[in-house]
Structure formats: C-alpha cells, structure tokens
C-alpha cells in the first residue's frame, strides 16, 4: 500500500473517492463541483454555494440549519471557491465527530451525509426561484466579499498581478466574481444556473476517515442521484505568452510596498518536467533555505517575507514580497540575479538534496490532514491524470541538476507589479 491510497467509484453521475484511515477522531466529507472559468457564470457560481448553505426545505432558516449541525456534535459545514488552472471549483466540506470517541454512539456519518444531500438537492425554493430573503442577504454578503480583497493589501496585490498578467485569459477573473454582475442575478436566473451546474459540472465526493467502503458507497448511492455527464475540459496549452515584460506600478495609501512578480513556466502538472519545476521553485524561492529568502531577506535585509510558489495547473510561478517603497529597484534586481543564477546552474547538489528532502516532508505532512489529502488527490481530477503520491515522490527524487537547468530555460518573466505609497490615481 502506498502513502496515500483512495478507491474511486462511479456513483450516479459523480466520482466517489474513499480514503479509509484510522488516524482521525472525525470523518471528513468534501463535495466538489468543477466547471471552466468564464465571465458569464463566475459570479453566479460564487453566489450559488452561499445561497445553498444558508438553508433548505427541511431547515428553512439559517438558525435551524446551524442548530441541527450543533446537535451533530458541532459538525462543521462550509463552502469555498477556488481557481484550479482555468477551472472554477466550488467545495462543500463537512467534518463530523466519529462517535466511537463520544459517550453517545448515535451514527453521525449517516446523518452528515443526509445533511449534505439535503442542502445540495433540496434547496429552499418557491416554485422555480430561491427564497428571496436568502437571495438578498447573500447578494449583499457577496458584494462585501468581493470588495474585501481591496482591504487586504497582500491579497490585493496578488489579485492585481494576475489581473494584469492574464488580461486576455479567463484566469484573470476573481474567484468571488464581479461586483457589477451581482445585482443582475435574480432568483430565477440563479435557480436556472443551479440546475445547469448540477447537470453539467464535474462532480467529486471525497470521504476520509475510519469508514467502511461498502457503507459509504451505499449512502452515496441512496442519497445522491445526478445524471451522467461528460465533463467539459479546457485546452490548457492555449495560454498566452507575451514577449514583452510588463511593469506596472500602482500608488495607494500604504506604508509597505508590495512586490509581486509573475513568470510563465510553460510546464503543467503531469508533464515530464513538472518534477524538475518543483525543484526549481524550491531552490529558487519556495522555502526558508531558498535563494530569495537568503538574498533578499537574510543578506540584504529588505523584507520580512519573500517567496515563490507555483500555480501548477496554469503554468505560473509567482513571487511575492513586502518591501520598503524606496527599495524597489534593489529588490527587483536581486530577484532577477537569482533567476539568472538558476539558469546558469549556480546551485549545488547539496541544495538539490536539501530541497528534495523538504518537498517530500511537506507532502507527507500535508496528507496528515484530511483536507490536505483531498486537495492533493484533487490535482489528478483537475489535470485528468492518475499520478499516485508514491510515483510523484519517486519522480521528484530522480530529478537531476541538468533537468533543473533545462526547465529553468522554459521559465519566462511576464509581469512585475508594485503597489507603492503615493496618492491614488
């Protein structure tokens, strides 16, 4: 058996992933809905899960719905939205106590499944529309959620970099949708979209915990009945590449400047050189032993945080740092120098081995957490691959220095974005 194994079954229009493990005191259920990102639907998709999670036919108010969850020993239930490459993913997650650790032995998993099915498939509708009060409340909350990105400057500058860098691509869309579209979504429109999403989205249900596969399969088959579908896939290789480096400076009333730099890696999850890219990122900026941390923070004393990370399904590497406004030129030039050093192969076997050890450690730690497991397994769904974690680690372990230099050659600087102190334009 590998470090992480799942069994995958086709059940009534969705894929059921079961990951049995005894290490938790709770069981985790995650339902994911995936569709290509597009301007037309992004705001509806951002609103939908929040409307669904507010109430249902059986629990017509949030108070009743939340009281029921409290009764189930504080089962947690929340929704979130993510971008995975050019896909928009809605997740509904539940975590419920395993009754074997309680003095009361009511079977909680079955109740949690029943609850999730209720919220997803028995919404609080009136005819062919969602309850109007719920719509009004959730539209107001969504507007606030969209606006709040402006108030967290670290998030804001990352959002702006992506917006500028991917201008012509769906990936530029904000995960919570577009402010100007919220008002035009009526109950009818959202209900129609709800039916469309349940009929067309790629659906995955993950169950992690001390569970019996037959029982989970039975529950899923009895409670969910979605139509068979062929998920819509996008051609991820169609990404744009520009030859000119864009440089954008935006002035705001901020004390610290936020520097965000975007690179195109031209490498995607599942590609042969993806593992070399992981090492590249680790040596360059992923960790506290990386070149960026050593040179920007430890040597030049310019920043508290400086790091790079990969967006594996979109082929991006993003660098972020918080610096004093006057140090922009110095910081950019150090980062560019480190990039050059990587291209020239100025890193040692020791750095490679250190990075391999740390990446492996990070992966094994991630799967100590049930949600972490689900996120790792979901990479295969997004990329339509079937790479086991053991295989992933073995491939990463075999990467050579030459392969890292080769992958470095594919990485292109695209956009430099700087949020700096000054009067707003």
């Amino acid at each position, binding site marked *: 058996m590998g470090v992480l194994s799942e069994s995958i079954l086709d059940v009534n229009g969705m894929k059921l992933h079961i990951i049995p493990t005894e*290490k*938790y*005191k*709770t069981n985790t259920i995650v339902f994911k809905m995936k569709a290509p990102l597009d301007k037309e639907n992004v705001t509806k998709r951002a609103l939908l899960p*929040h409307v669904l999670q507010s109430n249902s036919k059986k629990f017509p*108010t*949030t*108070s009743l719905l*939340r*009281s029921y*969850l*409290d*009764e*189930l*020993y*504080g089962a*947690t239930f929340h929704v979130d939205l993510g971008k995975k490459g050019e896909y928009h993913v809605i997740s509904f997650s539940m*975590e*419920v*106590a*395993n009754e074997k*650790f*309680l003095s009361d032995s009511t079977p909680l998993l079955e109740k949690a499944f029943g609850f999730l099915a209720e919220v997803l498939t028995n919404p609080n509708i009136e005819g062919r529309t969602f309850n109007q*009060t719920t719509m009004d*409340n959730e539209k*107001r*909350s969504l507007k*606030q*959620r969209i*606006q*709040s990105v*402006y*108030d*967290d*400057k670290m998030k804001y500058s990352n959002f702006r970099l992506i917006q500028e860098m991917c201008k012509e691509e769906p990936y530029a869309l904000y995960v919570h949708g577009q402010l100007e579209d919220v008002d035009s979504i009526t109950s009818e429109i959202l209900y129609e979209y709800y039916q469309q999403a349940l009929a067309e989205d790629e659906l995955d249900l993950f169950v992690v915990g001390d569970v019996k596969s037959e029982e989970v399969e039975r529950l899923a088959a009895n409670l969910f009945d979605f139509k068979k579908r062929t998920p819509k896939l996008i051609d991820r290789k169609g990404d744009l590449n520009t030859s000119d480096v864009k440089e954008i400076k935006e002035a*705001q009333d*901020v*004390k*610290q400047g936020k520097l965000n730099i975007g690179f195109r890696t031209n490498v995607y999850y599942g590609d042969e050189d993806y593992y070399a890219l992981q090492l590249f990122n680790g040596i360059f900026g992923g960790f*506290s*032993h990386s070149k960026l*941390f050593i040179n920007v923070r*430890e040597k030049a*004393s*310019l920043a*508290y945080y400086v790091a790079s990370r990969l967006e594996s399904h979109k082929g991006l590497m993003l660098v972020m740092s*918080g610096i*004093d406004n006057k140090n922009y030129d110095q910081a950019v030039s150090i980062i560019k120098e480190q990039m050059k050093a990587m291209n020239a192969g100025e890193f040692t076997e*020791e750095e490679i081995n*250190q*990075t391999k*050890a*740390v990446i*492996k*450690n*990070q992966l*094994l*730690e991630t799967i*100590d*957490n049930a949600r972490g497991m689900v996120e790792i397994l979901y990479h295969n769904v997004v990329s339509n691959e079937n790479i086991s974690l053991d295989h992933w680690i073995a491939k990463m372990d075999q990467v050579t220095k030459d392969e890292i230099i080769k992958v470095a050659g594919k990485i292109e600087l695209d956009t430099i974005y700087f949020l700096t102190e000054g009067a707003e334009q």
Partner: protein
Amino acid sequence: MEKIEFNQLQEKLFHEKLDNGLEVYILPKNGFNKTYATFTTKYGSIDNHFIPLGKEEYLKVPDGIAHFLEHKLFEKEDGDVFQQFSKQGASANAFTSFTRTAYLFSSTSDVELNLETLMDFVQEPYFSEKTVEKEKGIIGQEITMYDDNPDWRLYYGIIQNMYRNHPVRIDIAGTVESISHITKDLLYECYGTFYHPSNMLLFVVGPVDPVKIMTQIKANQSKKHYDSVPEIKRRFEAEPDEVAEKKQVLKMNVQTSKCLVGVKAESNEQSGAEMLKHELTLNMMLEVLFGKSSENYHELYSAGLIDDSFSFDYSQEKGFGFAMVGGDTNDPDRLAEDLEKMLLLAKEGNVFTTENLERTKRKKIGTFLRAINSPEYIANQFTRYAFNDMNLFDVVPTLESITVDELKAAAAKFIAQERITVCQVVPKK
C-alpha cells in the same frame, strides 16, 4: 516517566520533569507521518519589567524584545538554523505571543536529529551587534506589514482601548522606534532570565517511541550545566477594572468598515481548574449569544449588519482577559450599538436555557475532537494550558460539568457597561 491515559479519547500521554526543571511531554500519534515538537518558554511580550538573573533591581526593556530575541535565536556563528533543519528534511518555525515564545519543527524523517537541533539551538544563544542591527531591517518590514493590515490594527486597537497600564496593550513586535534600542547585551539579559529549563516545556507529538525520545532528551539535557535559579520576579502596574477608552475610530485605506466590541475581564489571578472552567464558560456564553444558530446572529445578519467575517472569542491569561465580537460591516455605529445591547441583555440571563446549553456543549465537544486531529494544536495548546496549571485533556469533562446557573452567573459577573469598549476601522474617504 509517568503515563497518563485518556480512555474516551484513546490517547496516552507521557510526562517527566527533569532534574534541571524542564517539563517534558510526549504524545504518541500512530498513523501520522509527521512528528511535531515545540520547545516553549514562559516568556512573551508582556514580560517587559523584571529583575534580570543575578541582579537586584527591576529593569524595563524595549517593547518588542521577546519577539526580536525569537528571531535572533535562529542565527548562529556558523550560519542559520533554518538551513540546518531543511538539510535534515524538517521545517522549522517560531512564534511569540503575549505570554510565550515557542520554537518548533515538524519532520517526517530524522526526528531524533531534528529534536537534537531544536534543543541545542534554543539553548545555545549567539548574539552579535552586527546581526542585531541587520535584524532591525527585517523586523521593521514585519511591523510595517502589520501597519497596513486593518484586522491587525483593529485587534490591537481594541486591546489598547481596554488596558491603560498592562503591557498586553503593547504590540508584540514593538515599533520601529522601540526596537532601535535593542542591543546584544539586552538580548543576553532577557535570555538568561527567561530561558532557564525550569521556565520551559518541551512537547513532542507524532509516531514516536516515548521511551526512546525521553531517553534522548534526558541525555541531551544532562550534558548541559544549569545552576538552579530563584523564581523570576516580574512587575505589572495596577490595572483598573474599567476600560481606558470607550471608543476609538481608525481611518484607514479600506473600502469596508470593521467594528469590534470588546469586554474587558475584571482583574483576577485565576489559574488551574478555576481558570479552565471560567474560560470555557465564557466561551460557551459567547457561542450561545453569537453563534450561527443564535437569535442574535440571525437578527444581525438579516439586518445586513454582518457578513461571514463575523467572529467572537474570549481569551484569558494570568492578569488579563477579554472578549471580542464583530467583523466587517456597512454600519459600524449601529453594529456597535446592537452588540452592546445584546451583551447587556444577556447579563440578565434569560437567554440561557438548558436547550441551548446542551446544544452548545455538543458543538464544543465536537470542536475539541476536531482540534485534536492536529498535532500543532495539541502541542501549542497543551503548553499554554500547562503554563496556566491547566490540563488540555480536562476540556471535555469540564465542558460537560457546566450548568445553566453557572452560565447565567458568569454572564452577570463578566458583562458590565464600564468594561465594554468599541473599536472601528472606517474608510478614509
């Protein structure tokens, strides 16, 4: 080595107090890949006025020095400890709170080697003038990062409203000005006073053999010499019960306003079982009052005054304690007014019923089970509890013991008009 069993939770905890005074706890967690270890001193940002080891007179040190020391401990004459950990496949970190400084690593291999590194780097300081100066630039950027963060400013703003004298009102990282006064000698003075093993606790959780780990820790500690030391003398000025400021409005570069209502606890010296019960009762009170299943939440949400950023919390340490409720809002004044009304109404007690108490108990018990899936939570919280003479594993039985009358009594005592305060962040324009 003592073995403590928690049957309902199916956990076994191993404990020993070493000759040099260090408290060691080991919790084996089979099935997990990672081992997580924390080495924590009972020394945080509030410990800024004390008698240094071997001296007679009280000394007041610059704001932010405990946090500064935490940063500097990672640097050694021959390089950076982060490097060493990552060569050993581990990830290391540290944090400073009001009352603790913790150093930690997690790793899925070479656990013993990493544990040795953890103990040695924390117990072998190396501070030089040059590296202290360099760190001022890095921490300066950490401070300005928080200056731009409205949630952080709101959180400190409300604490500053509550406390007139107590050092909890000081930002943990200090200010760019205050850290400019830090020198290597001051760092050594703080280190010598607060990093004696008898002021520290080591917690290891993961797929480990407790006997082997304890043997290793004892061997490591017995190689190092420590004289026994007198009890640390800290000084805190008297703090009035009422809040220092009733209201503060911070104008910032934001689009959405924020509002927090705080309640300052009456000064108390609680510890142990009494503190645990008090803390859990007040957390339960807030859950009944403002949880997502509560009437109040429903009312505020329907009125358009809150969104999903709404939250609440009660925290307490020896000498201070406070509750906070609030979040993003379109109408910070009305939210403040409504929250204050709701609190004062709760003081009368009618809102607490057997039904909502039992439901909230279940919720809290489930929340605890979920939390102890996390090795990080166990190590960090166990340490915090132990430093206050409480036991993390008493949480469930204590929750179960809380009655409606106790809830009513706690609310009646805790909530008082003169201890309520408001802090808001509003757009500049």
